[in-house]
């Protein structure tokens, strides 16, 4: 082992202390590196959709965590405009830009509810029950009020007591199907929320 006298030891210690103090004062070379925050959408799943707000129906891209594998619960973490959609070409208005918070809103309706005649409160029901109830009401109304022929005896097949209001975000394809179904039932009052 190296022979170090007490005096030498003190000198080495003092020199070490002095140089490390100088490093603290800013004389030490720092690595000139900066890490940019990682791009948070790197391997998220991208899903195309239509903004639900107004009738402009901007295209949106929903980015959700994970790759939809079996054990992964997806969660939408970001939404931005779809650059390939000819309506908005990637842009979104302030409401559309904040769509993420509508999806995660605590006030959002997440399951069907019914308020029966005379009842004060809304009652949670299942999807099957909701569809059954809607179908039952529609059928009852149609059976009671369907007009097969007019006064002149001409077949008209009208169902005037029920109307249908379609979503503003209905595409050509779903609009075609909607028209076929609703008109096939005899509904005359068909409209969409195709205006803001």
């Amino acid at each position: 082992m190296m022979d170090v006298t007490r005096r030498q030891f003190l000198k080495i210690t003092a020199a070490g202390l002095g140089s490390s103090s100088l490093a603290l004062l800013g004389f030490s070379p720092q690595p000139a590196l900066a890490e940019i925050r990682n791009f948070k959408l790197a391997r998220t799943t991208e899903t195309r959709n239509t903004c639900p707000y107004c009738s402009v129906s901007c295209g949106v891209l929903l980015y959700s965590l994970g790759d939809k594998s079996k054990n992964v619960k997806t969660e939408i973490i970001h939404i931005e405009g779809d650059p390939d959609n000819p309506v908005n070409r990637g842009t979104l208005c302030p409401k559309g830009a904040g769509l993420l918070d509508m999806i995660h809103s605590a006030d959002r309706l997440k399951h069907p509810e019914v308020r029966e005649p005379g009842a004060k409160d809304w009652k949670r029901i299942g999807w099957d029950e909701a569809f059954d109830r809607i179908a039952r009401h529609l059928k009852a109304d149609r059976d009671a009020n369907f007009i097969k022929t007019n006064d002149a005896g001409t077949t008209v097949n009208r169902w005037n007591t029920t109307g249908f209001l379609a979503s503003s975000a209905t595409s050509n394809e779903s609009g075609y199907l909607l028209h076929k179904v609703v008109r096939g039932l005899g509904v005359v009052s068909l409209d969409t929320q195709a205006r803001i």
Partner: protein
Amino acid sequence: MAWQSLDIQRRSATTTPAPGARQATEVAKLIDISQCIGCKACQVACMEWNDLRGEVGHCAGVYDNPGDLDSQTWTLMRYTELENNGRLEWLIRKDGCMHCQDPGCLKACPAPGAIVQYANGIVDFHQENCIGCGYCITGCPFNIPRLSEKDHKAYKCSLCSDRVAVGQSPACVKTCPTGALHFGSKEAMKDHAEHRIADLKSRGFSNAGLYDPPGVSGTHVMYVLQHADHPEWYSGLPRDPKISPWVGIWKGLAKPLAIGAMAAITLASLFHYIIKGPNEVSKETEKEVENETRS
């Protein structure tokens, strides 16, 4: 196009030279005030992308909401009603970091690596290195950075450096429905601005022009102003922004002097210790002192 955004050209409180051999494309955001309708989509998109959610505030009687920039609001629309030659003009300015080529915040920052400037021109804060002193706010000619009350660190617009790094545009630019915001290379933005200014001039705004202040060596966020001769009309946009001379005095003169003085003291005490050694007290002196204290 490779943005080379990991290359940095400046780093706060660091004396080591940054790598600078490669020429990165300088990027810029162009804000065309004449095309802005003040819808605040940019403000919402900024909060959404950067995971910021401010407190729900109160209406103060104006559209400015919130009232000022804060750690959760990195961009803010500022509305000015101007009566000019018998005409009412609504000047709406998107306020936020200008990403100066010569950033006052970075120059004033004493924390190594808390503020960096990438080779593409973006000035970014790295909060993990921030010590919360607030000198960046003093150093900023545009009064942009804000300290968070939650973690006492400074925050401001990053020009979505994470998006730009992968070749995307900042969130605000992408969402802008009227095309008032544009993003691209600084050259392309200047070209676009030229067309806009020519159009504005043909519509009677004879003083229309580009705001790219030379006092901070140009900015990477530029404005097209209808009244470039009166930038102060736009919610007090500074006419000739400059880094406060105190930043230069402190960092250029006072800091090296103080460091020199401290280093000199350290070296002097080191030499004193080596040459003179420790202050030794002889047995006689010790006895004398003991006798004095007893008597």
